[in-house]
Structure formats: structure tokens, C-alpha cells
């Protein structure tokens, strides 16, 4: 295995392009190093992206859209002025990842590109309608977060493509998101199920919504039926029940060391209710503010 820490994006792209064998990009390394250690794979080249300009930056456009550099560690997000106001669900999802130590390193992009079905950041990004900027030797492209996820551990990024940032759209008044996961302990666990809800309210009525589930299918799910269940409602009990039912109907989980099919399905509904209530309350605050 070789290691490189190129100082420019072009250098990184060239290196990745020229290398014959397996290439891994290194953001915070909290997935890469675990996989190295467990002997799961050994790439021929690891390219550390943290020296590349922009990778550690968070910026907000005049219109209110956010760009989060690919290597920005979790601990930074909550300190960026205005980000939590706009995207509380994204920030809380990222902050749930790992421990204090992991937070010093782990990134949203790493979370996305590792493509775990149980990743905490992904449902929040999917519900947010986030896009990613991708650089390759052939140029730049953007893609919806949901569109690059293929299977557990698999994205459709082409060899040598680098995700340079996560991009979040500008907010309209009365919008908020929330992410909740279930773990048996209070910290240091991988989600048994997770749910992100992103919605906009007007006059106490939900007018748009996106609901996303994690750890209940081979990839993170966007559940349009769940959104339909709450749109046009004031999130009354019937709406919440319909939401939970739609989420449960969308689940295609597995039995494993972390949870059973029945449990995951059940919990997905519970989390959806709780996340929707949280997002709704936040959105109402932001409507009046």
C-alpha cells in the first residue's frame, strides 16, 4: 500500500487516474482504517484528501445554499453559524456518529461514500434533498445523494472520482429537518433503524415533506408514501399513524446481530413519528421566527 497527500485536486485526480490497482480516498479515515485493520481489503494507494483546498471548508451562498467540504469533521458542523438553524437534522445526524474522538475526524462525505445501509448521515442527507459535487478527470458533475447509492458498501462513483462537497439547498421559511436513530446504548452503536424527516409548514400545515429511512433496507430509503401521509395535515394522530404505517410498509430489513426484521420494522414506525413531531415543532418555530 502507498500513501499520498496531494496538495491540489488536479494532483489527486491524476494520481487516482494513473494508479492501476485499487485506490481509496481518505477523509477522516474512520471507515478506511477500520477496514484496513480488519484485513477486509488493502488498497494499493490511499489518497489523503485533507490537504486539498476547500475540503475542510463550509460555506453559505448569498442565496442561503450550503457547501460542506468533503473532509469537514463532524465536530465542526455544529460550530458553523447558521448551519444548525437551517439544517438541524443534518447536524444532529452527523453529531450522532461515533464518539468525541470519531467526531474529530469523521465526515459526511465519508459517511456517504462508505455507503453503509445503517449510516446516520445518509438518511438526513437524502431527506434534505442534498446533492454532491463530484470531480473526475473528465470534469465536474453533480448528483442527488440518493442516486449514488447502489448497494451496501457500494456507490456508483467511477474509479478516480472524488466527491468534493455536500451541497444543501437554500431554505424557505417554515422548514426544518430532524433525524432520530435507535441504538441499544446511548452512544457508540450503529443504528438499528434511523429516520430523517424534512418538512415545510405553512399555517401549521405540512406542505412539503421528505422522509428517509436507514438500516431497514440494503440502501437508505426515500419513502414517498410516508411524505404523502403527512402532507396537507397538521400532523394529527391519524397522519402520524399513516406515516408510521407507510414507513413500516417500506422496510425490507434483515435479521442480524443488531436487530431482527420485526424489531427494525416496528422501530422504523416509532422513529418516524418521533422525528416528524420534532421536525414539525422546529419548522413551526422557524415559521414564526
Amino acid at each position, binding site marked *: 500500500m502507498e500513501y499520498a497527500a496531494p496538495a491540489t485536486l488536479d494532483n489527486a485526480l491524476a494520481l487516482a487516474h494513473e494508479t492501476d490497482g485499487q485506490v481509496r480516498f481518505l477523509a477522516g*479515515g474512520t471507515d478506511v482504517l*477500520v477496514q484496513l485493520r480488519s484485513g477486509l481489503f488493502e488498497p494499493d494507494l490511499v489518497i489523503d484528501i485533507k490537504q486539498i483546498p476547500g475540503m475542510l471548508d463550509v460555506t453559505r451562498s448569498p442565496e442561503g445554499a450550503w457547501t460542506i467540504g468533503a473532509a469537514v*469533521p463532524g465536530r465542526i458542523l455544529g460550530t458553523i453559524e447558521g448551519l444548525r438553524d437551517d439544517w438541524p437534522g443534518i447536524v444532529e445526524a452527523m453529531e450522532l456518529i461515533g464518539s468525541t474522538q470519531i467526531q474529530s*475526524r469523521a465526515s459526511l462525505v465519508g459517511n456517504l461514500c462508505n455507503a453503509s445501509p445503517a449510516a446516520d448521515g445518509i438518511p438526513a442527507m437524502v431527506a434534505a434533498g442534498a446533492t454532491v459535487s463530484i470531480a473526475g478527470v473528465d470534469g465536474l458533475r453533480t448528483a442527488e445523494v440518493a442516486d449514488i447509492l447502489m448497494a451496501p458498501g457500494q456507490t456508483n462513483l467511477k474509479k478516480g472520482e472524488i466527491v468534493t462537497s455536500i451541497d444543501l439547498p437554500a431554505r424557505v421559511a417554515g422548514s426544518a429537518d430532524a433525524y432520530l436513530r435507535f441504538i441499544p446504548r446511548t*452512544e457508540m452503536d450503529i443504528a438499528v433503524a434511523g429516520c430523517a424527516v424534512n418538512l415545510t409548514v405553512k399555517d401549521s400545515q405540512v406542505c412539503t415533506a421528505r422522509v428517509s429511512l436507514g438500516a431497514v433496507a440494503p440502501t437508505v430509503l426515500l419513502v414517498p408514501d410516508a411524505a404523502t401521509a403527512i402532507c396537507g395535515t397538521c400532523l394529527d394522530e391519524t397522519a402520524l399513524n399513516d406515516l408510521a404505517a407507510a414507513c413500516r410498509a417500506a422496510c425490507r430489513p434483515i435479521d442480524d446481530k443488531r436487530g431482527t426484521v420485526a424489531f427494525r420494522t416496528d422501530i422504523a414506525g416509532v422513529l418516524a413519528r418521533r422525528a416528524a413531531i420534532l421536525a414539525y415543532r422546529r419548522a413551526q418555530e422557524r415559521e414564526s421566527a
Partner: protein
Amino acid sequence: MIHVKMKVNGDPTEFLCDPRETMLDALRDRLNLTGAKEGCGTGDCGACSILLDGNVVCSCLVLAAEGQDREIETVEGMAAGEDLHPLQRKFLEHAALQCGVCTPGILVAAKALLERVPDPTESEIRYWLAGNLCRCTGYDKIVHAVADAAIEMRST
């Protein structure tokens, strides 16, 4: 082999390492700083905690090669000469260690906490240290020792 230059506990240091080596391996095997421990090698126990440019990280999840031009602080750098850091003293006074293998990592992590939050609540201490496993103490005396060190550090 990769040549790395970095600062450890204030001292300029350099070493050669295999690209696969972690910072924990380099500290322990190349620099003979065995204070940071390997409890898991996968980021789960915090026994290998160090400060990397002031932020607490698991050194088992950092490649040694990433150390180039960075500043590292380990438990060996906590005391100032003969004077123990207040956290080190409080851990002794409160008997906040039994076997002591988790202690270096917990001290380093707690130091990072108190530098950011001088007056942490019990719950803040517990959540901040959730990535540091201790199997002996049940964390009770550790939480008390950190809180007590915070009081002392605030008053001086």
C-alpha cells in the same frame, strides 16, 4: 517507508514508517511512547486517545503518515515536570482507576473537554467520554474526578 516530521508533546520528532502503520503504532513502536494503549485498534475503546492539533482522536484511526507537520500530545506530555496535571492528581485522589489501562486515554480526552467546557455537567462529562471504555470502575469515580478537576482548574 515514509519519512514523517511532527511535534510530539512539544518536541520536534521524525521517524520512518510503513504506509500501513497507524499513529498509535508509530508512537508506541517507533517513538517508544507506550502511554497510549491499543484496546481495540478500531476506534471503539478510546485507550489510544491523543490530541492531534488540539483535537482528541483515536490514534489507531490515524495513519502515521498523516502526522506530517502536525502537533501531537499524549498522556506523557500532560504533567509539567514534577507537577501533575490537575486531572492526573484528581484521578489519584478519587481512585478513578483500578487497572489503569484506560486511564491515559481518558485523561487525554478529559483534558480536551475541560479546555473547551470549563464547567461541564455530569451528563456532558459522560457523553464526552462515551468513546472511552473502562471495564473496571463503572465510570463513577472517573466522572467525579473530572468534575472535581474542573472545579480546581476554574478556581486557579
